[in-house]
């Protein structure tokens, strides 16, 4: 048995599911402003909890923290890249008030790499130490982003050790862990991870304490923007991954309730309808990544169109059509508290609790992306296996049971206009939560 909880701004929904995924009960309680754990406690208190093996919680607290510029730590930003990475400064293009709230200074030090091992420049360790002493006393956390670090994260880890030796034990977020190509977006995401480390740590502690008391022995997970789950430890390390997780859970829940892996989903709320699409059971991702609080980040978040309520049916029809892969190809699933106001589409039972159900039925996920030189198909297959292994390892780090992790997606994209040939490989893996 498992439970899913969706902590919304007004209400907290919870769902109790059997092991086969059938919904046994749902409840709705008022959320407690500023205290997500209290909402979780109130909702779960009204469900049978004795045989729960895991509880998955959907949160919006991290996104709210960025949007309101509240509870953010001051971050020292270290970019490893030297001359090839100086044209655009760290935190460039951020809304000034958010930059003000987050920035404790930055440095760009020599090091970083390229597509080939011989492109790598040695890390300027002295410059890293100077950066650390420069932000000492101001930085409450540090973000490290290295040029091409998704190909090799060693220099980021080496720099983190130097920073820790200078500044002691403070949160250090590394960009290589995010695994996506695109320096500025990955760096922004890493800075948000560092800035949110305080909020996320407190959140993880609060949830752990609440659930240890309410459901002792159950694994506790939180939702993330790609529609999978992660452990509380992972949340504390990578809070940015929870951004966009609310809509992602609703999309997945709607698909599971309607028995569809591919669908367009409309979540009808009191103030707006959020429309997204599912492909293979997971949310379609926004092209070019997401913007959080006005900052472009590399996180994978659902591609969404929002239609204000009360709505014009033509606007809703256009939003649904925009998210179709082809004309009228996918069924529409309508969920959420206001689902009755949209007559068309499928209205599955328990649609009001789609977010909580989506959390309960989702696996723990991990992903990995890298660029490799693959002169022929056999080299490609070997490289893909290595990338799939990294994705599996990422899922296990996020809290998946290593015995049951499987690859959801393995894709290769040839990089245009480069000899080599160079191929971008990407794998996603997922498995049930580990109970260890």
């Amino acid at each position, binding site marked *: 048995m498992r439970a899913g909880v969706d902590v919304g701004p007004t209400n907290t929904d919870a769902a109790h599911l059997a092991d086969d995924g059938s919904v046994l009960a749902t409840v709705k309680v008022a959320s407690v402003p500023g205290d997500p754990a209290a909402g979780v406690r109130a909702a779960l208190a009204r469900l049978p909890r004795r045989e729960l093996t895991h509880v998955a919680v959907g949160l919006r607290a991290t996104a709210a923290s960025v949007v309101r510029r509240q509870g953010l730590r001051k971050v020292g930003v270290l970019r490893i890249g030297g001359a090839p990475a100086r044209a655009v400064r760290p935190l460039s293009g951020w809304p000034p008030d958010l930059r003000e709230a987050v920035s404790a200074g930055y440095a760009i030090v020599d090091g970083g790499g390229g597509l080939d091992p011989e492109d790598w420049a040695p890390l300027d360790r002295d410059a890293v130490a100077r950066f650390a002493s420069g932000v000492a006393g101001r930085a409450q956390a540090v973000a490290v982003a290295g040029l091409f670090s998704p190909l090799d994260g060693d220099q980021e880890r080496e720099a983190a050790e130097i920073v820790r030796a200078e500044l002691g034990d403070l949160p250090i977020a590394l960009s290589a862990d995010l695994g996506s190509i695109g320096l500025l977006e990955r760096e922004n995401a890493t800075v948000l991870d560092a800035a949110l480390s305080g909020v996320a740590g407190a959140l993880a502690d609060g949830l752990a304490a609440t659930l240890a008391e309410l459901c002792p022995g159950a694994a506790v997970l939180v939702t993330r923007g790609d529609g999978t789950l992660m452990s509380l430890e992972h949340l504390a390390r990578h809070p940015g991954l929870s951004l966009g997780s609310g809509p992602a859970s609703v999309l997945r829940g709607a698909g599971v309730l309607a028995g569809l892996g591919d669908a367009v989903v409309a979540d009808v709320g009191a103030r707006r309808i959020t429309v997204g699409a599912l492909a293979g059971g997971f949310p379609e991702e926004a092209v070019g990544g997401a913007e959080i609080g006005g900052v472009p980040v590399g996180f994978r978040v659902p591609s969404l169109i929002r239609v204000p309520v009360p709505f014009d049916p033509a606007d809703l029809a256009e939003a649904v059509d925009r998210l179709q892969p082809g004309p009228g190809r996918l069924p529409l699933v309508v969920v959420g508290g206001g689902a009755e106001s949209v007559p068309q589409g499928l209205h599955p039972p328990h649609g009001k609790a789609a977010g909580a159900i989506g959390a309960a039925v989702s696996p723990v996920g991990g992903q990995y992306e890298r660029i490799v030189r693959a002169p022929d198909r056999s080299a490609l297959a070997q490289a893909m296996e290595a990338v799939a292994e990294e994705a599996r390892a990422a899922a296990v780090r996020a809290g998946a049971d290593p015995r049951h992790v499987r690859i959801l997606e393995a894709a290769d994209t040839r990089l245009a206009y480069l*000899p080599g040939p160079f191929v971008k490989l990407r794998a996603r893996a997922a498995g049930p939560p580990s109970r260890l």
Partner: protein
Amino acid sequence: MRIDTGLLPAFARGCAVLGSGGGGPVAIGRAAARQALEDHGPVEVVSPTELDPSLLVMPVGTAGSSAVMSERVGGTEEPVHLRDKIEELFGAPVGAVMASEIGGTNGCLAVAWAARLGLPLVDADGMSRAFPGMDQTVMQLRGVSPTPAVMCDERGRTVVIDHVTGRWLERFVRASLEAFGGQVATSEYVLRGHQVASCTALGSVTRAVRLGERLPEPIVTGKIAEAGGSVLVEGLGPDEGRLVRVEAGSEFLAVIEDGAPVAAVPDVIALLDTRTREVVQTEQVRYGLRVAVLTVPCDPVWHTPEGLRLAGPAAFGLTGLTALAAPGGLTGGSGTGGPGGPGGLGGPAGAAGAAGPLADRREVAP
């Protein structure tokens, strides 16, 4: 005119439109230009008549892969290395910077690098848009030598190419690109001040600003009804009932309606997302997107026979479109009997044709 951080967004938007669906990631070029303008102040835009006739005008740009640029955002010293080497090779000082290619990210980088060098930017460029080939320039048409040409990276690693034609320049840059890690700064077709008025596409910088401030009326506004291969745009609103086909390679190459071309390369074809007002690049096209399709004329030199040979429809493998490009030939190519089959237009399958296997932002294909 001066380009400062206030005028930059309009200029960058104009560059994006002139990318014709290609030209690389404008967001990075724009961010680099913003930082350079913040650090060094506004860039003076000068007309060719204001140039000292004997000083050098240095065309600048980058060649490479967009995927690499998204990671390796570039440095601050490339223009310094380029200038020093050009001055050494030509034995004369560089008096102004020019964009090799106004369309796409390279237009913005020319602003960034002029700011970093403290030099004026000439109101001209080599292409009047983005083209995939380094030799698809007005300078090539006017017989300016492409060499000595200089390639360098952010650390100043430099290659000088000399005694080659435009086609061979392309070949050498392609061969060096991998050694440079997939991205390189270049200067070729270096000019003297007195040559600019007759050997370049004039007014490019002011035109990009004007375009960014006010876009032309669209050919059609609608939704993308098919995105695989050629792009179908189904008219919506006032354009309800219309259906146009946009041929795309690494740029948008032609717009066809009722079997007849209404716009074609070398003229610029741009798609604009009607919701975000952002320029849509060829790889961002997908079903359901609401777009406005618009066209902007290229420099008239591209409609001369030599211009069309270098950068006309046939150079991009569009065999049925020569009629459109010829002056007054707009009505040709319709019907079913044309050489390219229905619509009289061959697909871009042979895009690796006459002008070489070329790609956007002068991205050099293997």
